[in-house]
């Protein structure tokens, strides 16, 4: 399946390193590229395609900041090689909003103040969409456990959990690659200071 072609790197006359040709669909666009076999998917997305919405937060697959969808299922793109995405479809945070309309999960994160610094947010949103695809009507505990692989240092998760439960309400069952669009719901005001 992999088409291996030796290629000289510019400015490295003596070095010959294998690269592999891959064909990947990312956020609906087809790309043909030559990559080093060791290149991580997240680096391919960020450095070759400029998809810098997906970020790197750790080097042990613990934080989940780099979470994307591969053929409709969430993966940590720091734990997938670019060559493993050959012939497959990748969806990132940058492909969620369509026609200027946010995905209901993005809208729920905004409405529920489910982000502060926002660094974990792309991965968190991608994981949350996957979670609802598996379990469209989770309870609070199921949401917490479903997000266990995604770390946030700002929110204490309270509003993230709230946002995911809110999104579950807004979305029809079966959110995934062909997610339903939420009704354009006017965000309910949040009373100041009330009990949680």
């Amino acid at each position, binding site marked *: 399946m992999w088409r291996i072609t030796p290629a000289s790197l510019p400015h490295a006359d003596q070095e010959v390193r294998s690269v592999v040709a891959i064909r990947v669909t990312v956020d609906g666009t087809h790309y043909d590229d030559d990559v080093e076999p060791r290149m991580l998917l997240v680096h391919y997305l960020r450095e070759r395609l400029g998809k810098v919405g997906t970020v790197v937060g*750790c080097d042990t697959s613990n934080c989940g900041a780099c979470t994307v969808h591969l053929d409709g299922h969430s993966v940590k793109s720091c734990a997938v090689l670019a060559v493993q995405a050959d012939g497959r479809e990748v969806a990132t945070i940058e492909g969620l909003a369509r026609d200027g309309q946010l995905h209901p999960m993005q809208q729920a994160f905004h409405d529920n103040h489910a982000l502060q610094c926002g660094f974990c947010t792309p991965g968190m949103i991608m994981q949350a969409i996957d979670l609802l695809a598996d379990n469209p009507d989770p309870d609070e505990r199921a949401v917490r456990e479903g997000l266990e692989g995604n770390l*946030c240092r700002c929110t204490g998760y309270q509003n993230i959990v709230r946002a995911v439960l809110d999104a579950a309400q807004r979305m029809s069952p079966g959110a995934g690659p062909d997610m339903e669009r939420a009704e354009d719901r006017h965000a309910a005001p949040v009373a100041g200071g009330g009990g949680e």
Partner: protein
Amino acid sequence: MTATVDSPGLEIGKARRRKEDARLITGRTRWTDNLQLPGMLHMAILRSTSAHAKITHLDTTAARQLPGVLAVLTGADLAGEQGSLPCAWPITPDMKAPPRPSIAVDTVRFAGEAVAVVVARSAYAAADAVEAIDIDYQDLPAVLDLEAALAGGSPLVHPDLGTNRNALWVFDSGEAGTGGDVQQAIDGSEVVLRRRFRQQRLIPAFMEPRSVVVDPTGDQMIVWSATQIPHILRVMLALTLNVPEHKIRVIAPDVGGGFGGKLQLTPEEVLTFLVARRLGKPVKYTESRSDSLVSAHHGRDQIQDITISANRDGTVTGLKVDLLADMGAYLGLVTPGVPILGAFMFNAIYKFPAYRFACTNVFTNKTITDAYRGAGRPEATFAIERIMDELAVELGMDPMQLRRKNWITHEEFPFTTVCGLTYDSGNYEAATHRAMELFGYDALRMEQQQRRERGDAVQLGIGISTYTEMCGLAPSRVLGSLSYGAGGWEHAAIRMLPTGKVEVVTGSSPHGQGHETAWSQIIADRLGVPFEDIEVIHGDTQVSHKGMDTYGSRSLTVGAIAALKAADKVIEKARPIAAHMLECGVDDLEWEAGRFTVRGTSNAKTIAEVALAVFAAHDLPDGVEPNLDSEATYDPENFSFPHGTHLCAAEVDTETGGVRLRSYVAVDDVGVVVNPLIVDGQVHGGLAQGIAQALYEEAVHDESGTLVTGTLADYLVPSAADLPPFTLDRTESPSTSNPLGVKGVGEAGTIASTPAVVNAVIDAVRHLGVRDIEMPCTPRRVWQAINQGGSQ
């Protein structure tokens, strides 16, 4: 204090969704690591694997020959230009401040210290070349234990200093004239209790790894950095490297969290700067998480010996605090001052008549410590709230009753404490009443009793924390009296655009706090313009030329007040122009809701109309410049003192030592609330970090000084599954320290929650003979405490 509380306007208090979110939820964020400049090179760092050693051999030949490698530089190459990283807080005149290199020249003093840098055309090539560097060390004995470090004959982190003691800093209320002599107080008391607590070493673990890009263009250097402190960074880079300040522009784009961990001039920033300057090319360094955990500064790490005295009726009579604080191998920007920020908080909300604080700062062969969310105040709050529980047990009192007996009552504000600080406002009774109501305190106490009587395997504990803290760093004169190297003011500017839109330039530098939203709300009210018509600009020294940045819960209480004062100047500049337009005297004008109205008429001009008239400048009063833009620099008169009551119910499985938080109630009083969504969010996140200290996180070094919690697989930042839902509410005692009545909320949750949780865990198993459990209260430690029937 002459400040009064202004009446709340339309925007202040509203749960506005954040302006910042639009780019963050769509992946259009401007992280430093996203930058790709033409010709940009990538830097990687080889770090010491030894905690204390001589570098005996360093060969970069093989690394230099790898493809795509432009340079490999060692400490020897950079020694002449790297200067010494700054410490801005010489806490005593005789404090020992060793030089701090960005890259080790011949000796390494902690595992993780930079020893060589590689510059290559890609990050992968740079990482490959780091692997190809050949280095040998001759190990020296490592100093790892705080007490052993001070013993005679200990190896020395810096032999030139002749000691591992950095400084001794003392506050004594008897000597200061702010209270009595603590030894007399203790000697004359009926009950004296001593406890030793350990504040384990923590890692801030902001989610965005640090990243820096330096672009040299001629002699102008543009520095992008994931920093909390672009303005301080610019000054410190200039001073450290002897580069003219006006040739440096620092930009902090979107920054992914900091928690104090990005309050630093880092070796990585200096090295990237030096390498970019040397090669004349833009260079990027982005750390890996493993790099970050070992090299970005750590926090906490104190041994606290606390003595409290009281009378049998529960009245506290004295408090004595002796600290050992770990600096690590060098001093960072405010390293030695962190424990001092806690010095004024051990007495907390209680009316101690006598108090003494002494802190010995100690060097060890570990990563430096410095500010981490709360910086000194969580440590102090933990110690006092823990020992108040112990005192209650000793006296046979309910722990809340003991607190009530000793706290400052709401009629007593403003209250000058035994440290000489004046607490602005508060109502501990109201916050506590509300918290106990939400928590169901009496019912839980009853259930606890039943479980104890039944001998259930799972026992229930209740933990209390009635905390206060100081926000709004800081009145410059106070910082001066503490020998801090800078002021505590903040700067802001308002620019009125011809179309009536407004730009607010703030010297604060947000990294998740939501300034763009909150400042918009505040200025919308002040200038009477729509929330949507305001843009908040920050984090670029060329645009926001002056500032003291964001830390210490100072942004709202200092930074936003500067913006408010700049807005007031805009209004005053507009007033004579509006009078001219309306053909009346300035005294005939009333300013309300964004318009000048001629008193008693409906003739009015909005601030937008005045802004347009100023833009045209065809017909202005004589001598009036065509400009409404205004700046203000605000230096606070006092700190603000948020407070609150946090209650935690913890279930402890006595068979496994496992702890489950069943409920957590936080009632906080942070003064006037600008945006309740943001305030609640700050509390949530703060609680998570405080709970993490209580139960999960610890930076652990092995006997050789290697950090063994060097990845996120080992350093246990809690996930959603590890934390309970929180129940929040607020009381509101407006601050008298500033005209908005705001107090700050960034650190409150972290400061309050750690003792609440540990008190709850111990309360659950106290009847089994447990008096203390060291943090983090892991199942192993809890189980051992139960089974050994004593302190762990």
